[in-house]
């Protein structure tokens, strides 16, 4: 579904990503792992056009989307739940969700999806009229994910959904992602929390200092003690 060919991302003289190629197939869940500052956020931001792709090609379903404006890429059916959640703090939960569906014309479908996700995230129904700034970190993360889903994407990218959340809440978030997986949603998951991510993912990539150091099956990565230890600071299984 999504193919990256030798993608470079630079901010002026600073090179954040140096030639990464990867592929996400339809229905698959891919984990993108790596230490802090490895370029993970830059890479997913470049896919949706929020970071400048200085070289390389990004394809969605075969169509070249490199350099297209963010809003057009999103309407093609791929979206990103950004790092740090970025919910609209002054808007209510309901208004946030409404904006998530802003690019859609099918009113009935939107109402239907809203019902689905309020079912899936009961806390959002409970706090529907509250301003997003009043929500806890975990609740805001759920809102951010639900808001992304409201655009009915073919593929969802999540940037560090567990960042800064209590372990119990992290478990909730991953439970939810497992639920989305069972619905067949294609996902690219950026995580520091490697173990949890690999339990969920079909395949995985590891980047460090802007370059790819591993690409393959999630299970293989788990088995490779070396990579796990060197780049992710974890004991392999």
């Amino acid at each position, binding site marked *: 579904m999504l193919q990256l060919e030798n993608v470079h991302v630079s901010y002026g003289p600073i090179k954040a990503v140096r030639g990464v190629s990867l592929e996400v197939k339809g229905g698959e869940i891919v984990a993108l792992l790596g230490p802090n500052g490895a370029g993970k956020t830059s890479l997913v931001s470049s896919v949706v056009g929020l970071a400048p792709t200085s070289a390389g090609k990004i394809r969605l379903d075969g169509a070249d989307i490199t350099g297209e404006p*963010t809003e057009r890429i999103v309407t093609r059916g791929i979206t*990103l739940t950004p790092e740090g959640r*970025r919910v*609209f703090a002054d*808007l209510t939960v309901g208004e946030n969700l409404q*904006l998530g569906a*802003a690019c859609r014309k099918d009113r009935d479908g939107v109402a239907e999806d809203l019902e689905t996700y309020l079912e899936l995230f009961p806390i959002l129904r409970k706090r529907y009229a509250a301003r997003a700034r009043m929500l806890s970190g975990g609740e805001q993360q759920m809102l951010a994910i639900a808001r992304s889903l409201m*655009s009915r994407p073919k593929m969802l990218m999540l940037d560090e959904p567990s960042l800064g959340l209590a372990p119990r809440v992290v478990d909730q978030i991953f439970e939810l992602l497992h639920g989305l997986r069972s619905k067949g949603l294609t996902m690219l998951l950026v995580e520091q929390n490697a173990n949890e991510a690999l339990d969920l993912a079909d395949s995985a990539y590891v980047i460090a200092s802007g370059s790819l150091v591993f690409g393959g099956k999630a299970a293989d990565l788990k088995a490779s003690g070396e990579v796990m230890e060197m780049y992710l600071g974890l004991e392999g299984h």
Partner: protein
Amino acid sequence: MSDYILQQAFNALSVGGEYALLALGLAIVFSVMNLVNFAHGDMITVGGYAMFLLLMFGVRDPLLVLPFGVLMTVAAALLLERIAFKPVRNASPTTGMLTAFGASIVIQNIALIFGGSRPKAVPTADWIASSISLGSVQIPIVQVLETGVTIAAIIGLVALLRYTTVGLAMRAAAKDVPTVRLMGIKADRVILTAFAISGFLAGLAGIFILARRGAVDPFMGFAPVLKAFVAAVLGGFGSLPGAVVGGFALGIAEVTLQVVLPQEIAGFRDAIVFFLIGVVLVFRPQGILGERPDFGEKS
């Protein structure tokens, strides 16, 4: 005596309403794209000349002339965004402000070239100059209309910002443009909407400015917007409720001074009002409703 006070109160409301309309237009554009639009008043000038031309061609029906003026003000706002502001959209606020300043000079001087510097009288309908009686009090109809239109416009704006998707997007964009784009919303559309709204509010205010002055000249919009800027700073720059509060506060202050100042120093009114506002800002630098500090809040 109380009749006089009631009359002046209405006067203050209508003057304040005019400033509030203008300050709101400035605040909307500023909140969405961090642009200090010095050319805001010159859109009014464009609308004013448009109405003047229509009247010269013999079209006298206010139901044609007034909407045409508002429409042309909106068109001027949108055109200005395309020509001057879009190219500097990602530049620093100073660059944007100076661009607007330059655009303002251009519009004033084009009006000067084609219209001359002398005010040109605009024939207004008689009913505009008439008054309505409220008990024993005579209130000019312009003031009643202006106050009413201001209140209606504020209610309409609140509704738009609360209940429409583009309104929500504008509120969201005031804090976080990239995430708004992630929703598949065109940043361009949000910005154009902000300009259209600011142009519409300016157009409404322009009608009343024209009605009071009874003439068009190249600076007819620039001068009132100068005051609206001060009102916006007083209320808290970039805050929409602040713009309304600042506008009315300025209107009330002006009319109050007009009433209490002795004849000899009445001419100093504007200087005194600005000075008093400066003193208020010494004690409350963020303005009446402003947040402080808002450094880097926008990402």
